[in-house]
Structure formats: C-alpha cells, structure tokens
C-alpha cells in the first residue's frame, strides 16, 4: 500500500520537477548545506523511553498545532499501529515488543533525523530546504512549490504533505525547534521528557557520550549508534537494546543518500523534455494559488 503510494509520488515528483523548471522561483541558489563542527544534535536513548508521548504533545504545543489535552496522551492503544510523522504530528512514538520475556516493551520516538548530508536538501529543486549551522534541516514555506521531491528522497520517510490539500499543500516536518533554539531554549520534546531520554548537545560530544554509555553498560545496549554513520551521519543519534532493523530503522549504508536523487534530478533535466503547455498551465495554477494564500495571510 505504502509502497505504491510512494511510487505514485515519485512520478508526481518527476512531473513536479518539470514544473519547477518553469516556476518563477526556480532555485538559482545552490542548496545551503552548512556543516559546522559545533552543530548540535540529540541523542535518543530508546532504552529509557516509556512511551508516555509527552514529546508528541510538547512538539505540537511548540509549533501551534492543534492538540488534544495532555491527559489523552496516556492512551497506549495508538501503539497498535506503527505511525509515521505527519503534518499534524511532527514526531511520533511507536512501540515494539521486548525480546526479553517479561520486560517492558520498547518505545521509539521518531522525527526528522537532521541528516548531515540531507537528501531532502539535495532533492529540493527550489532550495526550500537547508541545513543550518546549528544542525537543523529546515524548510522555507515561501519557496516550496509542493513538488514532493523531498518526500521521495528522504531515506527516513519524514517530510509529509497535507494530503487533503491538493494544490497548496504544506510540507511539514520536525524543524529541530529552530525558533526555540534560536531563542536559547532547548527543543520542546527534549525539555518535556520525564525520563530525559534525549540529550541535546554538540553532535560530536553526543557521539562520544553514546559510545561511553555502551562501554559502561554492555548488557544494556547493542554496540551501535544509529545515525553516527548512516547516510553520512545524522544530527539525531539513537541507542537501543536490540537491533535497529527490528525497531523499524531502515538499514542504510554510510554513503549520503542524496546521490540517488541527484542523478534522478539531473537525468530529468538532461533528457526530459516536458510537455511545456501542460506544465505551464499546472505551474500557473500552483503559483497563483500559492500567492493567493500568502496574500490572505498578510
């Protein structure tokens, strides 16, 4: 099911790419990708997470998304299905059975990993995505043309669109609390977590901390820090008590993912001659409706 939708979106992305070539805000600037040595990150220790979902709540509050009252997050029946972040919830917690009989289940919080070499940044042909100096990969609503390239490119299936809106959808994903951290605060989910599952700090220090924890508690963790090398490294790092693949983490190599999407993109521009009249029409509608929305907001 999911796969076929993604396949569809891939096609949609190709169409979108054609559109972008004509859109007035075509990315002339190369995507910004700053890799500061002091970039921040978060270490998520899944062995500590109790699945209270307070992080889901705090994230919504911090991003002015509608949320049910906090008590409603005690409901564990949501764990019956595996969930993915979506425009209404930028982070979600899933639950997995513990292989050790009688021990509590394993909960894993997921959200954008803020890749060091973000596929979404490379894939975005209008430069709406950027990797910031503090490690955050953020998205500029004003530039996005809704092509959904990022969605196809992301190895963690993070960016999602508002499906209900066909023509002016907004893509939403965890922004590493870019606004809050700019004000000197820590990410909302990190702050609220009662178990202090997450540590917010410089990525290189977190990598060190993660290995120290593994060394000090060899029985507690498997010897791997997920995100240290995957797709070239991510700002969000994970520790776990059992193999990451069993916790729905994709098996990824150490090479940055964007390569694949870049060649796709380049191939399109090199060999693909779009039926110009159709795209011009579609692009026009998109552009107008976007403008319209922006002026409404103003």
């Amino acid at each position, binding site marked *: 099911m999911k796969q076929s939708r993604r396949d569809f979106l891939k096609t949609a992305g190709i169409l979108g790419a054609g559109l972008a070539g004509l859109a007035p805000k075509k990315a002339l600037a190369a995507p910004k990708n700053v890799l500061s040595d002091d970039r921040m990150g978060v270490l998520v220790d899944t062995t*500590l997470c109790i*699945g209270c979902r307070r992080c889901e709540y705090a994230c919504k509050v911090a991003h002015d998304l509608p949320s049910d009252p*906090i008590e409603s997050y005690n409901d564990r029946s949501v764990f019956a299905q595996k969930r993915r972040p979506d425009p209404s919830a930028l982070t979600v917690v899933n639950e997995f059975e513990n292989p050790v009989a*009688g021990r509590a289940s394993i909960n894993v919080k997921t959200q954008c990993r803020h890749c060091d070499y973000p596929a979404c940044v490379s894939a975005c042909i209008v430069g709406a995505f950027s990797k910031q100096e503090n490690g955050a990969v953020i998205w500029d609503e004003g530039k996005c043309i809704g092509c959904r390239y990022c969605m196809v490119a992301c190895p963690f299936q993070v960016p999602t669109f508002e499906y209900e809106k066909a023509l002016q959808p907004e893509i939403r994903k965890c922004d590493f609390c870019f606004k809050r951290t700019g004000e000197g605060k820590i990410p909302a989910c990190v702050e*609220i977590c009662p178990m*202090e599952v*997450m*540590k917010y700090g410089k990525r290189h220090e977190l990598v060190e901390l993660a290995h120290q924890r593994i060394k000090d508690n060899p029985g507690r963790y498997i010897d791997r820090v997920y995100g240290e090398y995957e797709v070239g490294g991510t700002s969000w790092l994970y520790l776990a008590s059992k193999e990451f693949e069993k916790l729905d983490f994709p098996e990824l190599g150490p090479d940055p993912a964007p390569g694949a999407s870049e060649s796709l993109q380049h191939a399109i521009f090199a060999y693909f001659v779009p039926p110009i009249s159709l795209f011009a029409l579609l692009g026009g509608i998109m552009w107008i409706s976007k403008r319209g929305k922006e002026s409404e907001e103003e």
Partner: protein
Amino acid sequence: MKKILFILIIGLGAVYAQPAGEKHHAQMPLDCKSCHVCERPTYEKPCLKIMPEFTRRRGITVYHRAEDAPAVMKIDVLSNLYEPTIFTHKLHAEMADMAGGCVSCHHFNPPGRIAPCRECHDPNATGTDLSKPGLKGAYHRQCLSCHREWSHSNECSVCHAVKGDPSAATAAAVKSAKQEIKHPKITEPAKLVYQTGADEGAIVTFYHDDHAQRYGLACVSCHQNESCSRCHDTMKETAAVEKEPHDNCMACHAEEIDNRCELCHGAREKPRFDHELTGFSLARFHSSVDCKECHGQQGRRRVAKPDASCIACHKGWNATNFDHRITGLALDENHIENDCSDCHANQNFNAPPTCTDCHDDLSYPKDLPGRKVD
C-alpha cells in the same frame, strides 16, 4: 495549555537523614580524578566524569539494613504545582533488598555517607548536561523502570496529584499509612525440580536451601537481574522462566557443565548432597562448621579438597588445653597427663590409638584409657 507543560516537569526534593559526623569524601584517601575531570570541583560545578564507575563499585562505604531506613519521604519541591508525593522509602528499601540492595537507587555514591539525589542531579537541569540526568530524569528513571513493568502504565497521577485535588489528601494518607507495611517475607523453596529438555537426564534437582544456607550464597549471587515484575505483574499470572538456566550455575559449576552433566541431570530426582559420601562424616563435630573453614575459598567456589587430618585445622592442642571428654572418652587419672602423641602415634588422630608402646597386653578399643561419657 503551556501551563500544563510545566505540570509535567517535576523537581523533587527529598531529605535523607544522614548519620552525623561522617567525613566529607574529599578528606578520604581517594583520587579526585576517579570521579572529577577538573582540578577544583565544587557543588555548583562538580565536573563529574560521565558515570564514574568507581563510585558504583566501591564508593558506598556505609551500609544500612532496610529496617533502619527512613520510613517515608515527602517530596515537595514543586509544591506550587503538586500535592507532595509521599515516597514509602522503607518499603522500597525492603524490596530492593531482593535485588541490588540500596545501591540499586543510591548508585555512584560518594564514600562516607548516603547522598541525597539532588546533590548530583540538578533540580534545574535543562537537559544539556551530558554527564548525568537532572533530578527530573533521575527520579523518573528510578520509579518508572519498575513501576511501568508491573502496571503497564505511566499514569502521572500515580505519584503526582495536581495541587488542590481533593483526592490527593486521601492518597497521601494511604501512602503514609503504608509506611509500616512490610514486604511479605519471601518463602524460599527447599528444592526445585526442573523438567529440562535435555535428551539424557531430563530431570535436574536443585537444592535451593543448601545453596542459600549451607553454601552461603547471597540471593543476588543468582538473582542478579531480577525485576519486581518477575512477581508483580498485573498482566501475568506466573513469573518468567529463566532463558539460559546454565548461566546461574556457571560461576561455580563451569567444569561440571562442560564435562559432568550427570552431576545435575538424571532420569529421576537426585538426593541431596551428603558429605558422608566423601568419606569424611560431618556428623557430631563438623555439621555446623562453615564450608570455607575447611575448604577455603577459591573464587566463589569452595570445593578444594582439604587436608583431612585433624591437626591440619586443630593446631596447638595439648594435654592441658584439650578436654578429652568431648570425644566421648573421659581419660582416667593415669592417662590424663599423657602427651597426645603418647597414645596417638605420629599425631594421627584419625586412626585408633596404639596401646602397645606402653602396655604389652592391652589394645584399643578392647581396653580403654578411661571411661565412656556422652
């Protein structure tokens, strides 16, 4: 809405009665660098190493019995938001006795006294201190690691009653009343018979009482990673079965596990170990002697075969300080001042005494150098 955010953030303060007059650990013969990374640690900036293992292993130098632990603690730092939380400390200490003891919570303790949590775990931590959790994380980790396993719930309200909640007063009263409730004594099984999947000798008999009492193993020697939920689990009727039963026996019986399966495995239940079978009866004089008195201690195992001659242990006895009556024979006046070796040739007390050195016509036990007593 945002208000509720704060409600979730707890900061707890607890006062732990300290034994007076303990030295500060800085005055103890310790290397500061074992725990601190900087030259001059202060309470504000302790610059602790990430999880200093030293303190977990050797740091705690004061031990209390669970019965001596403070009964309840009132945790009320966030009293502007919450009704105080009543923590039934003694009850928990008794439960901890069945696993790691005090150390399971009071870990990484500086030597000399038991420090309250907040001395290391900052109540105002912001989540950026990489070396340790703040007080919020420290408390929640301690409580929830067990509580969520047996109740399968993380309901905040179990501990946190929102300020002014009328039911809170009753809840606190109930908890205070609980302070005298003791954890029921765990009844220790005498013997456990396991039906294993082994092809040959499927039945393994384990004499639990011998191991716990006679061989002097502490509960935690085997029950190392027990969790409360092994017994207390609202969703389970029976305790989890050990996955790898050999693991527990390995520390002492590695050799048998590798080479002598029949020591434990049999077609039927095995009898209890009887020292008589070794050729040295424990009856009468040695039954109450601790194994290691004779066998010494090799690691955790105590089966080194000792020198079975009496003088190997009983050195320095002579006619004046040994009361021969306890052997069952009260020496008569002709013999009481003899040297031991006059009768017990070559100091061999295991063999019958010789009479012929002095008496041509007498022999033991036909003739006795005294009279029998009980």
